[in-house]
Protein backbone atom coordinates (compact mmCIF):
# COMPACT_ATOMS: atom_id res chain seq x y z
CA UNK A 1 0.00 0.00 0.00
CA UNK A 2 1.32 3.42 -0.93
CA UNK A 3 1.54 6.21 1.65
CA UNK A 4 2.17 9.79 0.59
CA UNK A 5 4.16 12.39 2.49
CA UNK A 6 3.95 15.97 1.30
CA UNK A 7 6.98 17.97 2.39
CA UNK A 8 7.02 21.72 2.49
CA UNK A 9 9.02 24.53 4.00
CA UNK A 10 7.84 27.92 5.11
CA UNK A 11 8.93 31.18 3.54
CA UNK A 12 10.86 33.72 5.60
CA UNK A 13 7.59 35.23 6.88
CA UNK A 14 6.20 31.85 7.94
CA UNK A 15 3.78 31.58 5.03
CA UNK A 16 3.73 29.03 2.22
CA UNK A 17 4.73 29.99 -1.29
CA UNK A 18 2.75 29.33 -4.46
CA UNK A 19 4.96 26.37 -5.53
CA UNK A 20 4.24 24.74 -2.16
CA UNK A 21 0.49 25.09 -2.68
CA UNK A 22 0.78 23.70 -6.21
CA UNK A 23 2.64 20.67 -4.90
CA UNK A 24 0.03 20.24 -2.17
CA UNK A 25 -2.84 20.01 -4.65
CA UNK A 26 -0.88 17.43 -6.64
CA UNK A 27 -0.05 15.41 -3.51
CA UNK A 28 -3.68 15.48 -2.35
CA UNK A 29 -4.85 14.27 -5.74
CA UNK A 30 -2.24 11.53 -5.77
CA UNK A 31 -3.17 10.28 -2.28
CA UNK A 32 -6.83 10.31 -3.24
CA UNK A 33 -6.31 8.32 -6.44
CA UNK A 34 -4.10 5.66 -4.87
CA UNK A 35 -6.45 2.88 -3.96
CA UNK A 36 -6.49 2.26 -0.22
CA UNK A 37 -3.85 4.84 0.57
CA UNK A 38 -4.30 6.61 3.89
CA UNK A 39 -4.92 10.36 3.85
CA UNK A 40 -1.96 12.55 3.05
CA UNK A 41 0.65 13.24 5.71
CA UNK A 42 2.06 16.75 5.72
CA UNK A 43 5.60 17.45 6.91
CA UNK A 44 6.53 21.07 7.56
CA UNK A 45 9.96 22.60 8.00
CA UNK A 46 10.67 26.14 9.10
CA UNK A 47 11.59 28.55 11.83
CA UNK A 48 8.01 28.29 13.02
CA UNK A 49 5.46 26.03 11.32
CA UNK A 50 2.16 26.29 13.21
CA UNK A 51 0.81 29.19 11.12
CA UNK A 52 1.57 27.35 7.91
CA UNK A 53 -0.05 24.18 9.23
CA UNK A 54 -3.13 26.14 10.24
CA UNK A 55 -3.33 27.58 6.72
CA UNK A 56 -3.54 24.01 5.39
CA UNK A 57 -5.87 22.71 8.10
CA UNK A 58 -8.79 22.36 5.71
CA UNK A 59 -6.98 20.36 3.03
CA UNK A 60 -8.05 16.95 4.34
CA UNK A 61 -4.61 15.73 5.38
CA UNK A 62 -4.63 12.95 7.97
CA UNK A 63 -1.55 14.00 9.88
CA UNK A 64 0.62 17.07 10.34
CA UNK A 65 4.23 16.72 11.40
CA UNK A 66 6.71 19.49 11.85
CA UNK A 67 10.32 20.32 12.51
CA UNK A 68 10.85 23.87 13.66
CA UNK A 69 13.71 25.88 15.07
CA UNK A 70 15.91 28.87 14.52
CA UNK A 71 18.31 26.83 12.37
CA UNK A 72 15.47 26.16 9.94
CA UNK A 73 14.45 29.78 9.53
CA UNK A 74 17.03 29.90 6.74
CA UNK A 75 17.70 27.68 3.76
CA UNK A 76 20.85 25.59 4.29
CA UNK A 77 21.69 22.08 3.14
CA UNK A 78 22.84 20.50 6.39
CA UNK A 79 19.94 21.64 8.56
CA UNK A 80 17.28 21.21 5.87
CA UNK A 81 18.50 17.71 5.04
CA UNK A 82 18.49 16.70 8.71
CA UNK A 83 14.95 18.01 9.18
CA UNK A 84 13.55 16.43 6.02
CA UNK A 85 15.24 13.11 6.76
CA UNK A 86 13.71 13.11 10.25
CA UNK A 87 10.24 13.69 8.81
CA UNK A 88 10.69 10.91 6.27
CA UNK A 89 11.96 8.52 8.95
CA UNK A 90 9.01 9.38 11.17
CA UNK A 91 6.34 9.13 8.47
CA UNK A 92 7.79 6.10 6.64
CA UNK A 93 6.17 7.05 3.32
CA UNK A 94 6.50 5.24 0.03
CA UNK A 95 6.02 8.47 -1.95
CA UNK A 96 7.39 11.89 -1.02
CA UNK A 97 6.01 14.88 -2.91
CA UNK A 98 7.52 18.36 -2.72
CA UNK A 99 7.85 21.53 -4.76
CA UNK A 100 11.10 22.08 -6.63
CA UNK A 101 11.99 25.26 -4.77
CA UNK A 102 15.64 26.23 -4.60
CA UNK A 103 15.68 25.08 -0.97
CA UNK A 104 14.27 21.62 -1.60
CA UNK A 105 16.10 21.18 -4.91
CA UNK A 106 19.30 21.56 -2.91
CA UNK A 107 18.35 19.39 0.07
CA UNK A 108 16.00 16.59 -1.00
CA UNK A 109 18.30 14.67 -3.37
CA UNK A 110 20.72 14.26 -0.48
CA UNK A 111 17.88 13.24 1.84
CA UNK A 112 16.79 10.67 -0.72
CA UNK A 113 20.31 9.27 -0.74
CA UNK A 114 20.37 9.25 3.06
CA UNK A 115 17.15 7.23 3.42
CA UNK A 116 17.92 4.87 0.54
CA UNK A 117 15.25 6.12 -1.84
CA UNK A 118 15.14 7.30 -5.43
CA UNK A 119 14.29 10.71 -6.77
CA UNK A 120 12.79 12.22 -9.89
CA UNK A 121 12.78 15.92 -10.58
CA UNK A 122 11.24 18.14 -13.27
CA UNK A 123 7.94 16.32 -12.69
CA UNK A 124 5.07 17.95 -14.55
CA UNK A 125 2.34 15.36 -14.23
CA UNK A 126 1.23 12.69 -11.74
CA UNK A 127 -1.11 9.86 -12.64
CA UNK A 128 -2.34 6.66 -11.06
CA UNK A 129 -3.02 3.81 -13.48
CA UNK A 130 -4.21 0.52 -11.99
CA UNK A 131 -2.88 1.50 -8.55
CA UNK A 132 0.51 2.29 -10.09
CA UNK A 133 1.81 5.84 -9.63
CA UNK A 134 3.27 7.30 -12.79
CA UNK A 135 4.94 10.57 -13.54
CA UNK A 136 5.75 12.68 -16.54
CA UNK A 137 9.10 14.39 -16.46
CA UNK A 138 11.30 16.15 -19.01
CA UNK A 139 14.72 15.22 -20.26
CA UNK A 140 17.38 17.00 -22.29
CA UNK A 141 16.27 20.38 -21.00
CA UNK A 142 12.62 20.26 -22.02
CA UNK A 143 13.33 18.67 -25.37
CA UNK A 144 11.54 15.39 -24.65
CA UNK A 145 9.04 14.16 -22.13
CA UNK A 146 8.89 10.69 -20.58
CA UNK A 147 6.18 8.87 -18.69
CA UNK A 148 7.66 6.45 -16.20
CA UNK A 149 7.16 4.54 -13.01
CA UNK A 150 9.55 3.01 -10.49
CA UNK A 151 9.73 0.00 -8.25
CA UNK A 152 11.98 1.55 -5.57
CA UNK A 153 10.60 3.22 -2.48
CA UNK A 154 10.60 5.75 -1.01
CA UNK A 155 10.22 7.60 -4.27
CA UNK A 156 10.84 11.32 -4.02
CA UNK A 157 9.07 13.56 -6.53
CA UNK A 158 10.10 17.18 -6.99
CA UNK A 159 7.35 18.98 -8.88
CA UNK A 160 8.07 21.73 -11.41
CA UNK A 161 6.52 25.09 -10.66
CA UNK A 162 3.46 26.13 -12.64
CA UNK A 163 2.50 22.60 -13.65
CA UNK A 164 -0.28 22.10 -11.09
CA UNK A 165 -3.05 24.35 -9.79
CA UNK A 166 -2.36 25.94 -6.42
CA UNK A 167 -4.42 24.54 -3.53
CA UNK A 168 -7.05 26.88 -2.14
CA UNK A 169 -9.03 26.07 0.95
CA UNK A 170 -10.12 26.93 4.43
CA UNK A 171 -7.64 27.66 7.18
CA UNK A 172 -8.22 26.28 10.65
CA UNK A 173 -6.26 24.83 13.50
CA UNK A 174 -3.94 21.93 12.81
CA UNK A 175 -2.43 19.71 15.44
CA UNK A 176 1.23 19.44 14.55
CA UNK A 177 3.32 16.56 15.89
CA UNK A 178 6.78 17.89 16.65
CA UNK A 179 9.42 15.55 15.24
CA UNK A 180 12.72 15.60 17.12
CA UNK A 181 15.91 16.16 15.14
CA UNK A 182 19.54 16.02 16.12
CA UNK A 183 20.76 19.06 14.27
CA UNK A 184 24.22 18.47 12.85
CA UNK A 185 27.00 20.89 13.50
CA UNK A 186 27.09 23.17 10.51
CA UNK A 187 30.01 25.07 9.07
CA UNK A 188 27.78 27.26 6.92
CA UNK A 189 26.31 30.57 8.00
CA UNK A 190 23.58 32.16 5.89
CA UNK A 191 24.34 35.85 5.64
CA UNK A 192 21.38 37.11 3.64
CA UNK A 193 20.22 37.72 0.11
CA UNK A 194 20.98 40.20 -2.61
CA UNK A 195 19.57 41.03 -6.01
CA UNK A 196 21.39 39.46 -8.89
CA UNK A 197 21.88 42.92 -10.35
CA UNK A 198 20.64 46.41 -9.78
CA UNK A 199 18.05 45.72 -12.47
CA UNK A 200 17.04 42.26 -11.32
CA UNK A 201 13.51 43.50 -10.76
CA UNK A 202 13.06 43.11 -14.51
CA UNK A 203 12.69 39.39 -13.78
CA UNK A 204 9.07 38.95 -12.69
CA UNK A 205 8.06 35.29 -12.47
CA UNK A 206 4.41 36.21 -11.78
CA UNK A 207 4.07 38.52 -14.81
CA UNK A 208 1.54 37.73 -17.52
CA UNK A 209 4.00 38.51 -20.30
CA UNK A 210 7.57 37.40 -20.93
CA UNK A 211 9.54 39.72 -23.22
CA UNK A 212 12.62 38.10 -24.69
CA UNK A 213 15.36 40.20 -26.24
CA UNK A 214 17.71 38.51 -28.66
CA UNK A 215 21.17 39.40 -29.86
CA UNK A 216 19.76 41.39 -32.78
CA UNK A 217 19.19 44.36 -30.47
CA UNK A 218 22.95 44.96 -30.27
CA UNK A 219 23.74 44.40 -33.95
CA UNK A 220 24.21 47.05 -36.62
CA UNK A 221 20.96 48.69 -37.62
CA UNK A 222 19.83 50.14 -40.95
CA UNK A 223 22.28 53.05 -40.65
CA UNK A 224 25.17 50.62 -40.31
CA UNK A 225 25.72 51.39 -36.63
CA UNK A 226 24.71 49.54 -33.45
CA UNK A 227 22.42 51.47 -31.12
CA UNK A 228 22.84 49.67 -27.83
CA UNK A 229 21.95 52.61 -25.59
CA UNK A 230 18.70 53.21 -27.48
CA UNK A 231 17.97 49.50 -27.34
CA UNK A 232 18.43 49.48 -23.57
CA UNK A 233 16.14 52.43 -23.16
CA UNK A 234 13.46 50.96 -25.42
CA UNK A 235 13.50 47.56 -23.71
CA UNK A 236 13.48 48.99 -20.18
CA UNK A 237 10.66 51.35 -21.05
CA UNK A 238 8.56 48.53 -22.45
CA UNK A 239 9.24 46.07 -19.62
CA UNK A 240 8.31 48.71 -17.03
CA UNK A 241 5.20 49.92 -18.87
CA UNK A 242 3.86 46.45 -19.56
CA UNK A 243 5.05 45.05 -16.21
CA UNK A 244 6.55 42.23 -18.23
CA UNK A 245 9.31 39.89 -17.18
CA UNK A 246 12.51 40.27 -19.17
CA UNK A 247 14.28 37.29 -20.67
CA UNK A 248 17.22 36.96 -22.96
CA UNK A 249 18.65 34.58 -25.46
CA UNK A 250 21.96 32.92 -24.59
CA UNK A 251 23.77 34.65 -27.39
CA UNK A 252 22.90 38.08 -26.05
CA UNK A 253 24.03 37.26 -22.51
CA UNK A 254 27.23 35.62 -23.74
CA UNK A 255 28.28 38.75 -25.59
CA UNK A 256 29.34 40.21 -22.23
CA UNK A 257 31.97 37.54 -21.80
CA UNK A 258 33.13 37.99 -25.37
CA UNK A 259 33.89 41.66 -24.96
CA UNK A 260 31.10 42.89 -27.24
CA UNK A 261 28.72 45.71 -26.51
CA UNK A 262 25.96 44.45 -24.29
CA UNK A 263 22.74 45.54 -22.66
CA UNK A 264 23.96 46.55 -19.23
CA UNK A 265 21.06 45.08 -17.27
CA UNK A 266 21.25 41.61 -18.80
CA UNK A 267 22.67 38.82 -16.70
CA UNK A 268 22.70 35.04 -16.95
CA UNK A 269 19.63 35.04 -14.74
CA UNK A 270 17.66 36.55 -17.61
CA UNK A 271 18.61 33.71 -19.91
CA UNK A 272 15.82 31.43 -21.13
CA UNK A 273 16.29 28.24 -23.07
CA UNK A 274 18.33 25.12 -22.90
CA UNK A 275 20.97 26.59 -20.61
CA UNK A 276 18.68 29.05 -18.90
CA UNK A 277 15.29 29.02 -17.28
CA UNK A 278 12.02 27.56 -18.52
CA UNK A 279 9.48 30.26 -17.73
CA UNK A 280 5.75 29.66 -17.50
CA UNK A 281 4.18 32.99 -18.40
CA UNK A 282 0.88 33.04 -20.24
CA UNK A 283 2.22 35.18 -23.09
CA UNK A 284 5.61 35.53 -24.68
CA UNK A 285 6.96 38.13 -27.10
CA UNK A 286 10.32 37.40 -28.73
CA UNK A 287 12.26 40.13 -30.43
CA UNK A 288 15.39 39.78 -32.54
CA UNK A 289 15.77 36.11 -31.61
CA UNK A 290 16.96 33.56 -34.13
CA UNK A 291 14.65 30.80 -32.91
CA UNK A 292 17.08 27.90 -32.86
CA UNK A 293 15.93 24.82 -30.99
CA UNK A 294 18.02 25.38 -27.82
CA UNK A 295 16.36 28.75 -27.47
CA UNK A 296 12.90 27.61 -28.40
CA UNK A 297 12.88 24.97 -25.65
CA UNK A 298 12.81 27.82 -23.16
CA UNK A 299 9.36 28.66 -24.56
CA UNK A 300 7.97 25.19 -24.17
CA UNK A 301 5.48 26.25 -21.53
CA UNK A 302 4.52 29.68 -22.88
CA UNK A 303 0.92 29.49 -24.04
CA UNK A 304 0.56 32.43 -26.45
CA UNK A 305 3.65 33.34 -28.45
CA UNK A 306 4.40 36.20 -30.78
CA UNK A 307 7.65 37.30 -32.34
CA UNK A 308 9.14 40.23 -34.20
CA UNK A 309 11.98 39.54 -36.58
CA UNK A 310 13.28 40.96 -39.82
CA UNK A 311 13.84 37.46 -41.15
CA UNK A 312 10.63 35.72 -42.17
CA UNK A 313 12.52 32.45 -42.32
CA UNK A 314 13.69 32.56 -38.71
CA UNK A 315 13.00 29.70 -36.35
CA UNK A 316 9.87 31.41 -35.15
CA UNK A 317 8.41 31.19 -38.63
CA UNK A 318 8.63 27.42 -38.51
CA UNK A 319 5.45 26.83 -36.57
CA UNK A 320 6.62 27.77 -33.12
CA UNK A 321 4.96 31.15 -32.69
CA UNK A 322 1.31 32.04 -33.20
CA UNK A 323 2.19 35.28 -34.97
CA UNK A 324 5.46 36.38 -36.56
CA UNK A 325 5.72 40.06 -37.45
CA UNK A 326 8.33 40.62 -40.12
CA UNK A 327 9.44 44.07 -39.05
CA UNK A 328 12.14 46.08 -37.32
CA UNK A 329 11.79 45.51 -33.56
CA UNK A 330 13.30 48.94 -32.81
CA UNK A 331 10.52 50.67 -34.74
CA UNK A 332 7.73 48.45 -33.48
CA UNK A 333 8.68 48.55 -29.81
CA UNK A 334 9.21 52.31 -29.91
CA UNK A 335 5.68 52.67 -31.18
CA UNK A 336 4.36 50.15 -28.66
CA UNK A 337 5.96 52.20 -25.89
CA UNK A 338 4.26 55.31 -27.19
CA UNK A 339 0.87 53.60 -27.14
CA UNK A 340 1.40 52.14 -23.69
CA UNK A 341 2.51 55.56 -22.48
CA UNK A 342 -0.67 57.20 -23.75
CA UNK A 343 -2.92 54.97 -21.70
Amino acid at each position, binding site marked *: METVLYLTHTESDGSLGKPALEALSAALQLAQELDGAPPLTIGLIGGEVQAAADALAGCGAGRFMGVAGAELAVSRYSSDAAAAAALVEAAQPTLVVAAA*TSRFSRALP*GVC*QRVGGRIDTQVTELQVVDTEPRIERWYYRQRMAATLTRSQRPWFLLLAGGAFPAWEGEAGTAEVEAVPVDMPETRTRVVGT*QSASADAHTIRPEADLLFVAGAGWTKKQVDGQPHVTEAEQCIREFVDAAQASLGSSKSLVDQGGEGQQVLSFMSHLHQVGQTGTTPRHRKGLATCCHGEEPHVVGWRFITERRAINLDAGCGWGQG*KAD*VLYVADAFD*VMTKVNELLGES
Partner: protein
Amino acid sequence: MSSGFHLVVCGSLVPDPLQTLEPVTGPAGPALKNEMMLPSVLDPWAGHALYEAAHLAESAPDSKVWLVSLGPKARLQQLMMSIAQKVPFELVALDGSAGGFTDPTEVAAVLANAVQGIAGLERDRLLLFGGCASASRDAGATMQMVGERLGITEQFLAVDELTVECDGSLKVLERIEGAQYQISVCAGPPAVLAWATGNLPEPPNNPQVGMVNMRSVMPALQRAQPAPVAAEGVKFLDVTVPRQQRDTRIVRDMPVDEIARELVDWIRG
Protein backbone atom coordinates in the same frame (compact mmCIF):
# COMPACT_ATOMS: atom_id res chain seq x y z
CA MET B 1 50.43 22.71 5.62
CA SER B 2 49.43 23.67 2.10
CA SER B 3 46.73 26.26 1.59
CA GLY B 4 45.74 25.14 -1.88
CA PHE B 5 42.54 23.41 -2.86
CA HIS B 6 41.91 19.98 -4.24
CA LEU B 7 39.24 20.70 -6.80
CA VAL B 8 37.35 17.74 -8.19
CA VAL B 9 34.98 18.58 -11.03
CA CYS B 10 32.31 16.09 -12.10
CA GLY B 11 31.27 16.64 -15.67
CA SER B 12 30.68 14.77 -18.86
CA LEU B 13 29.49 15.11 -22.40
CA VAL B 14 26.06 15.95 -23.75
CA PRO B 15 24.82 16.18 -27.34
CA ASP B 16 25.64 19.45 -29.05
CA PRO B 17 22.57 21.63 -28.30
CA LEU B 18 22.16 22.43 -31.99
CA GLN B 19 21.54 18.77 -32.84
CA THR B 20 18.06 17.43 -33.37
CA LEU B 21 17.33 14.84 -30.72
CA GLU B 22 15.01 11.94 -31.32
CA PRO B 23 14.25 9.25 -28.75
CA VAL B 24 14.35 5.58 -29.66
CA THR B 25 13.59 2.53 -27.56
CA GLY B 26 16.22 -0.15 -27.37
CA PRO B 27 16.55 -3.34 -25.36
CA ALA B 28 18.02 -1.39 -22.44
CA GLY B 29 15.30 1.26 -22.50
CA PRO B 30 15.12 4.67 -24.12
CA ALA B 31 18.09 6.29 -25.79
CA LEU B 32 18.77 8.86 -28.48
CA LYS B 33 18.71 7.94 -32.12
CA ASN B 34 22.30 7.62 -33.36
CA GLU B 35 23.47 8.59 -29.90
CA MET B 36 27.03 7.43 -30.44
CA MET B 37 27.28 9.45 -33.63
CA LEU B 38 25.92 12.74 -32.31
CA PRO B 39 28.49 15.51 -31.97
CA SER B 40 28.94 16.22 -28.30
CA VAL B 41 30.16 19.01 -26.09
CA LEU B 42 31.10 19.33 -22.44
CA ASP B 43 27.92 19.71 -20.43
CA PRO B 44 27.50 23.50 -20.22
CA TRP B 45 27.07 23.88 -16.46
CA ALA B 46 29.81 21.34 -15.75
CA GLY B 47 31.95 23.37 -18.13
CA HIS B 48 31.37 26.48 -16.06
CA ALA B 49 32.32 24.48 -12.98
CA LEU B 50 35.55 23.38 -14.65
CA TYR B 51 36.49 26.91 -15.67
CA GLU B 52 35.73 28.23 -12.19
CA ALA B 53 37.82 25.44 -10.67
CA ALA B 54 40.75 26.23 -12.93
CA HIS B 55 40.45 29.92 -12.14
CA LEU B 56 40.42 29.21 -8.40
CA ALA B 57 43.38 26.85 -8.72
CA GLU B 58 45.32 29.56 -10.50
CA SER B 59 44.76 32.00 -7.67
CA ALA B 60 45.42 29.54 -4.83
CA PRO B 61 48.97 28.14 -5.04
CA ASP B 62 49.44 24.41 -4.63
CA SER B 63 45.92 23.66 -5.86
CA LYS B 64 45.06 20.93 -8.30
CA VAL B 65 42.07 20.19 -10.53
CA TRP B 66 40.74 16.76 -11.43
CA LEU B 67 37.96 16.20 -13.96
CA VAL B 68 35.92 13.08 -13.23
CA SER B 69 34.07 12.20 -16.39
CA LEU B 70 31.62 9.38 -17.04
CA GLY B 71 31.00 8.55 -20.68
CA PRO B 72 31.79 6.12 -23.47
CA LYS B 73 35.57 6.01 -23.68
CA ALA B 74 35.76 6.78 -27.40
CA ARG B 75 33.51 9.80 -27.07
CA LEU B 76 35.38 11.06 -24.01
CA GLN B 77 38.54 10.92 -26.06
CA GLN B 78 36.95 13.10 -28.73
CA LEU B 79 35.71 15.55 -26.12
CA MET B 80 39.13 15.82 -24.54
CA MET B 81 40.59 16.99 -27.85
CA SER B 82 38.84 20.30 -27.28
CA ILE B 83 38.44 20.51 -23.50
CA ALA B 84 42.04 19.63 -22.73
CA GLN B 85 43.15 22.80 -24.50
CA LYS B 86 41.10 25.03 -22.24
CA VAL B 87 42.43 24.63 -18.69
CA PRO B 88 44.88 22.37 -16.85
CA PHE B 89 43.40 19.30 -15.17
CA GLU B 90 43.97 15.63 -14.56
CA LEU B 91 41.34 13.36 -16.04
CA VAL B 92 39.68 10.52 -14.18
CA ALA B 93 37.73 8.67 -16.86
CA LEU B 94 34.87 6.25 -16.27
CA ASP B 95 33.72 4.17 -19.19
CA GLY B 96 29.92 4.12 -19.11
CA SER B 97 26.83 5.75 -20.48
CA ALA B 98 26.56 9.53 -20.56
CA GLY B 99 22.95 9.32 -21.71
CA GLY B 100 20.10 11.21 -20.11
CA PHE B 101 17.99 8.19 -19.25
CA THR B 102 20.28 6.93 -16.52
CA ASP B 103 19.43 7.24 -12.86
CA PRO B 104 21.19 9.92 -10.78
CA THR B 105 21.54 7.51 -7.86
CA GLU B 106 23.55 5.08 -9.97
CA VAL B 107 25.61 7.84 -11.53
CA ALA B 108 26.32 9.33 -8.10
CA ALA B 109 27.53 5.96 -6.86
CA VAL B 110 30.15 5.56 -9.59
CA LEU B 111 31.24 9.20 -9.36
CA ALA B 112 31.65 8.98 -5.58
CA ASN B 113 33.69 5.81 -5.92
CA ALA B 114 35.91 7.48 -8.48
CA VAL B 115 36.46 10.51 -6.25
CA GLN B 116 37.32 8.27 -3.31
CA GLY B 117 39.82 6.46 -5.51
CA ILE B 118 41.83 9.55 -6.46
CA ALA B 119 45.33 9.07 -5.16
CA GLY B 120 46.59 11.90 -2.98
CA LEU B 121 43.24 13.63 -2.66
CA GLU B 122 43.00 15.37 0.71
CA ARG B 123 39.50 15.64 2.09
CA ASP B 124 40.18 18.74 4.17
CA ARG B 125 41.17 20.57 0.98
CA LEU B 126 38.42 19.12 -1.17
CA LEU B 127 35.99 21.28 -3.11
CA LEU B 128 33.71 19.08 -5.17
CA PHE B 129 32.42 20.96 -8.21
CA GLY B 130 29.88 20.05 -10.86
CA GLY B 131 27.01 21.52 -12.81
CA CYS B 132 23.76 22.32 -11.02
CA ALA B 133 22.05 20.04 -13.57
CA SER B 134 23.08 18.33 -16.74
CA ALA B 135 21.73 19.17 -20.17
CA SER B 136 20.85 15.48 -20.60
CA ARG B 137 19.22 13.95 -17.52
CA ASP B 138 18.60 17.44 -16.13
CA ALA B 139 17.88 16.01 -12.68
CA GLY B 140 19.80 18.55 -10.62
CA ALA B 141 20.27 15.80 -8.04
CA THR B 142 23.54 14.04 -8.76
CA MET B 143 26.01 16.34 -7.02
CA GLN B 144 24.06 16.32 -3.75
CA MET B 145 24.04 12.53 -3.81
CA VAL B 146 27.77 12.36 -4.50
CA GLY B 147 28.29 14.74 -1.60
CA GLU B 148 26.15 12.62 0.69
CA ARG B 149 28.06 9.50 -0.27
CA LEU B 150 31.30 11.29 0.58
CA GLY B 151 29.86 12.56 3.86
CA ILE B 152 30.01 16.22 2.83
CA THR B 153 27.14 18.18 4.32
CA GLU B 154 28.17 21.68 3.28
CA GLN B 155 26.48 21.87 -0.10
CA PHE B 156 25.48 24.66 -2.44
CA LEU B 157 23.33 24.52 -5.55
CA ALA B 158 23.16 26.85 -8.55
CA VAL B 159 26.28 28.75 -7.53
CA ASP B 160 27.27 31.80 -9.52
CA GLU B 161 30.09 33.12 -7.37
CA LEU B 162 32.67 31.80 -4.94
CA THR B 163 35.06 34.07 -3.09
CA VAL B 164 37.80 32.87 -0.80
CA GLU B 165 37.91 35.29 2.10
CA CYS B 166 41.07 36.37 3.95
CA ASP B 167 40.39 33.89 6.76
CA GLY B 168 40.05 31.01 4.29
CA SER B 169 36.27 30.87 4.51
CA LEU B 170 34.20 30.56 1.35
CA LYS B 171 31.61 33.15 0.45
CA VAL B 172 29.06 31.57 -1.86
CA LEU B 173 26.30 33.12 -3.94
CA GLU B 174 23.53 30.70 -4.89
CA ARG B 175 20.62 31.44 -7.19
CA ILE B 176 17.28 31.39 -5.40
CA GLU B 177 13.79 32.47 -6.38
CA GLY B 178 12.91 35.96 -7.59
CA ALA B 179 16.24 36.71 -9.28
CA GLN B 180 17.94 36.81 -5.90
CA TYR B 181 21.13 35.31 -4.59
CA GLN B 182 21.45 33.70 -1.19
CA ILE B 183 24.76 34.63 0.38
CA SER B 184 26.34 32.03 2.64
CA VAL B 185 29.72 31.74 4.28
CA CYS B 186 31.19 28.28 4.67
CA ALA B 187 34.10 27.83 7.07
CA GLY B 188 36.11 26.02 4.38
CA PRO B 189 36.51 22.69 2.59
CA PRO B 190 35.21 20.10 2.21
CA ALA B 191 32.16 21.40 0.37
CA VAL B 192 30.06 20.62 -2.69
CA LEU B 193 29.36 23.42 -5.14
CA ALA B 194 27.02 22.71 -8.03
CA TRP B 195 27.51 25.60 -10.41
CA ALA B 196 25.11 27.56 -12.56
CA THR B 197 26.81 29.82 -15.09
CA GLY B 198 29.37 31.44 -12.81
CA ASN B 199 31.04 34.59 -14.07
CA LEU B 200 33.77 33.39 -16.37
CA PRO B 201 33.73 33.17 -20.15
CA GLU B 202 34.89 30.01 -21.88
CA PRO B 203 38.70 30.16 -21.96
CA PRO B 204 40.36 30.29 -25.36
CA ASN B 205 42.21 27.23 -26.58
CA ASN B 206 45.78 27.06 -25.40
CA PRO B 207 47.82 24.42 -27.27
CA GLN B 208 50.47 24.36 -24.53
CA VAL B 209 47.87 23.50 -21.91
CA GLY B 210 46.53 20.91 -24.33
CA MET B 211 49.93 19.24 -24.71
CA VAL B 212 50.45 19.05 -20.95
CA ASN B 213 46.95 17.73 -20.34
CA MET B 214 47.12 15.12 -23.09
CA ARG B 215 50.10 13.48 -21.38
CA SER B 216 47.77 12.40 -18.59
CA VAL B 217 44.52 12.22 -20.57
CA MET B 218 45.50 9.33 -22.82
CA PRO B 219 46.73 7.09 -19.96
CA ALA B 220 43.61 8.01 -18.00
CA LEU B 221 41.42 6.95 -20.90
CA GLN B 222 43.34 3.69 -21.20
CA ARG B 223 42.88 3.07 -17.48
CA ALA B 224 39.16 3.94 -17.57
CA GLN B 225 37.22 1.34 -15.65
CA PRO B 226 33.86 0.11 -16.90
CA ALA B 227 31.16 1.96 -14.99
CA PRO B 228 27.83 0.47 -15.95
CA VAL B 229 25.01 2.85 -15.13
CA ALA B 230 21.40 2.44 -16.12
CA ALA B 231 18.05 3.10 -14.49
CA GLU B 232 17.38 -0.04 -12.48
CA GLY B 233 13.80 -0.24 -11.28
CA VAL B 234 12.54 2.40 -13.71
CA LYS B 235 9.95 1.45 -16.29
CA PHE B 236 9.75 3.97 -19.12
CA LEU B 237 6.27 3.84 -20.60
CA ASP B 238 6.68 6.53 -23.20
CA VAL B 239 9.31 8.99 -24.38
CA THR B 240 8.29 11.58 -26.93
CA VAL B 241 9.40 14.84 -28.42
CA PRO B 242 6.52 17.25 -27.94
CA ARG B 243 4.83 18.17 -31.17
CA GLN B 244 3.93 21.79 -30.87
CA GLN B 245 3.67 22.73 -34.49
CA ARG B 246 1.72 25.96 -34.59
CA ASP B 247 -0.11 27.46 -37.45
CA THR B 248 2.02 30.59 -37.53
CA ARG B 249 0.48 33.69 -39.02
CA ILE B 250 3.37 35.44 -40.77
CA VAL B 251 2.64 39.14 -41.00
CA ARG B 252 4.56 40.95 -43.75
CA ASP B 253 4.16 44.49 -45.02
CA MET B 254 1.97 45.63 -42.15
CA PRO B 255 2.71 49.25 -41.14
CA VAL B 256 4.61 49.61 -37.88
CA ASP B 257 1.74 51.56 -36.28
CA GLU B 258 -0.68 48.74 -36.97
CA ILE B 259 1.67 46.08 -35.65
CA ALA B 260 2.18 48.12 -32.51
CA ARG B 261 -1.55 48.58 -32.02
CA GLU B 262 -2.20 44.88 -32.52
CA LEU B 263 0.51 44.02 -30.01
CA VAL B 264 -0.78 46.46 -27.41
CA ASP B 265 -4.29 45.01 -27.76
CA TRP B 266 -2.86 41.52 -27.34
CA ILE B 267 -0.79 42.51 -24.31
CA ARG B 268 -3.79 44.09 -22.65
CA GLY B 269 -6.18 41.32 -23.63
